[in-house]
């Protein structure tokens, strides 16, 4: 895969280090507060939390788009500040290393067609025309969007937009991928395809930080889950098994809720997860779309990667 630029500091430095970080969009109202978080190279971290807890804000901060109003963030061993990013060499290096797939693909796709979209990042990095074309071709193949390249983004479907958005990041060959709600707008088959893509990235040693409220996707794709509370603080940090078994905590942060179900003739209450995916806590035989497709795939019923429409 693409040659990552040389690390500016000691290679042992973690990708991101946040110490006592606070952020507020308007004075007084915090959108993140007291965040201590270290993300090491190659880790796959899921940031989960209810709506409005600050997941997107955290990712934007990791991408150097918003900055702490208190506390410090370091990226690859160096302080990540607005001033530091003003410096062209640092900016180029940082932008080439970190790719961010936005929550809304519409926001991210601003070029006049998909080809330009994929080429945008490499061109901004100042790569040669041949290199740009090669990267666009490879990324298009990887995400099965060759046929969409000459289409204006506003004529694409939600799922197609998401693929183009991811491809437009891949062409920059980032070492760190920040994914905001990657599974939204994807049908079950495409969700499986995305999980496969994440597995590929894990093999390649890329760091992934994904924000989601889809607990099953988090359980499937991440080797570490951090939980944001509605008070915008970090309330849990651990492996999926450690975090997802803390029912009280998940209830408290509104990621699951008490729910009355009727099974045959018996009504009973149990905790129920939000999100399109599987219910990691349900124990009474519901199989979700994802789990179904995975079972089928295991038995060879569904192709691993969907062909492009």
């Amino acid at each position, binding site marked *: 895969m693409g040659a990552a630029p040389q690390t500016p500091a000691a290679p042992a430095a973690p990708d991101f280090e946040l110490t006592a970080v606070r952020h507020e969009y308007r004075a007084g109202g915090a959108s993140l507060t007291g965040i201590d978080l270290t993300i090491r190279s190659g880790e796959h971290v899921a940031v989960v939390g209810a709506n409005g807890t600050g997941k997107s804000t955290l990712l*934007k901060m990791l991408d150097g788009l918003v900055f702490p109003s208190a506390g410090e963030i370091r990226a690859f061993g160096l302080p990540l500040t607005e001033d530091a990013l003003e410096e062209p060499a640092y900016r180029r290096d940082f*932008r080439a290393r970190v790719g961010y797939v*936005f929550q809304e693909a519409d*926001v*991210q796709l601003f*070029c006049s067609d998909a080809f330009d979209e994929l080429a945008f*990042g490499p061109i901004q990095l100042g790569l040669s025309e041949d290199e740009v074309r090669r990267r666009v071709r490879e990324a298009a193949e990887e995400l099965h969007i060759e046929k969409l390249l000459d289409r204006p983004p506003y004529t694409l479907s939600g799922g197609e937009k998401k693929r183009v958005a991811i491809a437009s990041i891949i062409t920059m060959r980032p070492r760190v991928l920040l994914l905001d709600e990657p599974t939204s707008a994807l049908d079950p088959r495409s969700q499986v395809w995305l999980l496969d893509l994440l597995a590929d990235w894990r093999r390649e040693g890329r760091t992934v930080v994904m924000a989601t409220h889809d607990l099953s996707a988090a359980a499937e794709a991440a080797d570490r889950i951090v939980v944001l509370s509605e008070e915008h603080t970090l309330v849990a940090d651990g492996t999926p098994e450690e975090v997802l078994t803390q029912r009280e905590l998940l209830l408290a942060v509104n990621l699951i809720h008490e729910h009355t179900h009727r099974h045959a003739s018996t009504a009973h209450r149990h905790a129920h997860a939000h999100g399109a995916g599987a219910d990691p806590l349900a124990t009474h035989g519901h199989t979700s779309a994802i789990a179904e497709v995975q079972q089928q795939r295991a038995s060879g019923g569904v192709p691993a990667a969907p062909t492009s429409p």
Partner: protein
Amino acid sequence: MHIPDGYLGPQTYAVLDLLMVPIWVIAARKVKRTLRARQVPLLALGSAFSFVLMMFNVPVIGGSTGHAVGAVLIAIILGPWAAVIAVSIALVIQAGLFGDGGITALGANCFNMAVVAPFVGYYLHRLLAGDAPSGRRRIVAAGAAAYVGLVAAAIVAGVELGLQPYLNHTASGQALYAPYGLGVAVPAMALEHILFFGWIEAAVTMGVVAALARSEPALLEMKPAARPLRWLWAALAVLILLTPIGALAPGTAWGEWSVPQIKEAIGYVPADFARLGGVWKAAMPGYLTPGVNNTLLGYLVAAIVGTVLVVGIALAIGALLARPPGGRAAVAGEPRAPRSRRADLAAAARPARRGGRSLARKTADAVAGAMADVLRNEDVAARRGLLQRLDPRVRLLTLMLFAVTATLVHSIWVLLALIAVTLALAVASRVAVASFERKVWLSAGLFALVIALPSALAWFTPGPAALRLGPLTFTEPGLLGVATLVTRVVAAAGFALLVVWTMRWPDLLRALTALRMPDVVVATLAMTQKQILALLTVVEQIHLARESRTLARVSAGADRDWVTERMAFVARKSMKTAEDVHDAMLSRGFTGAMPSLVRPRMGGADWVWTLAGMALCALVLFADRLAGP
């Protein structure tokens, strides 16, 4: 106020096109300095907003509706130089994507709406608002500034149109372009905007500024004035002193002093000009300033009274708007079940058969129609026709060359031949010919006919009588002038529409890049179009949602409240989108330009077509000289 192709003679539009180039360059520099890296998204936001604003129908007296331009509003929010760029881009997109406004007249339209209006409005606003950050004074100042800015633009447009009969006419007095002299064109444009469109502009601007002051005051923050505002007051005083030259009662002023001057300058005095001068002289001074004998003093009094009147009425409206919003429309029930998007578009684009559509429905229809247009254009542009096969640069430049040729031709027969060329190109490019001709003849031709027909009356254009209808006498040169204008407008509109219908938007952008258009401009154009489509969707849905929940007819006042509220919402929404998009660009290493890799290449067919097109245009001009006007 959009001047289409064919109304302005080549000297006028060429001068204004050329004049706009340095203005754009200066504006781009200024904006780059003040807006920094945020320039592209912010400008795109401004343009998209101006464009979308033109789609909102605002109710006026008597059940009719009109739309605002938003130039002054944008100047107030982003500054006058940013408004130059933003409104220009909105106009380019209207011409290039929707076919409204002309190609050759682009410079004139930009000068009027993107330079005159924002600058006049911006400085008047600063002057009237003082340092007041918000509050009633700010709102009233914005309304008055918008009103005066738009009227000023209209007067300049009137002058451009009114100069045509003097600059271009045949020996027999037949007008070749816009047929009315200054004595008619200026008062007509001025009055239309003083009585009608100026109020819409003022109401919209005040409404949006009031709503923004409530919800997003940071947007309206004024940078401290670099220089004391005293010179602005001085400038206003000078302007008032200068009004005899034509600001408030143009007919009077022109009639008073310019007949001999014009005769001296061009050796020709149009009949209507001399006559109207007399009419105005008889009617105005006695009426406006009874008891004042000195005419100059009369003008001054009129100008001051007029200014006071405008500010006073704006004050009254401001007082009304500053009330907490109340009296909401009757709303009930659930939004209707969503239908498929295409079906919605198709249904909405169909003209309503029954009269009395609601305001919301009208706007939603207009928006849906515009979007259906864009989608249809994409369709046609994707077909493999003659023009579509050509390199986009060649396509753009040759069609523009044809349009320019149409504005140079004097003979009606040669113009008819050019119309035949547009038809042939439409057929060869697999454009739906019926709808092409309908659009060209009905929207461009019929409009020109209606506007120009009165100019054929003996009263305007003297000459041998050709047709008598009761008391009305149409003269031979008059009717010929009308026919020339209509055929010219139809020919030019045909070529412009071919550009719109056979160019995919990405192709147009690439053609512009390949033609060395600055990256910032192309990037802004690209983003604007994207934002427009996104915003149009929002606007359409807002209106449809409202339509579906409105049971009873609501008063025009409530409708107006609602529309301005929505505009403020769209402004906020586009602001947020602009910021998000900018983040997305930064995240991918954006450094200020958006070059494209796909460069068009010229093939053999392109060269053949270019040479053939140039030869054809030369032939047309030669034939025209032979045929005589």
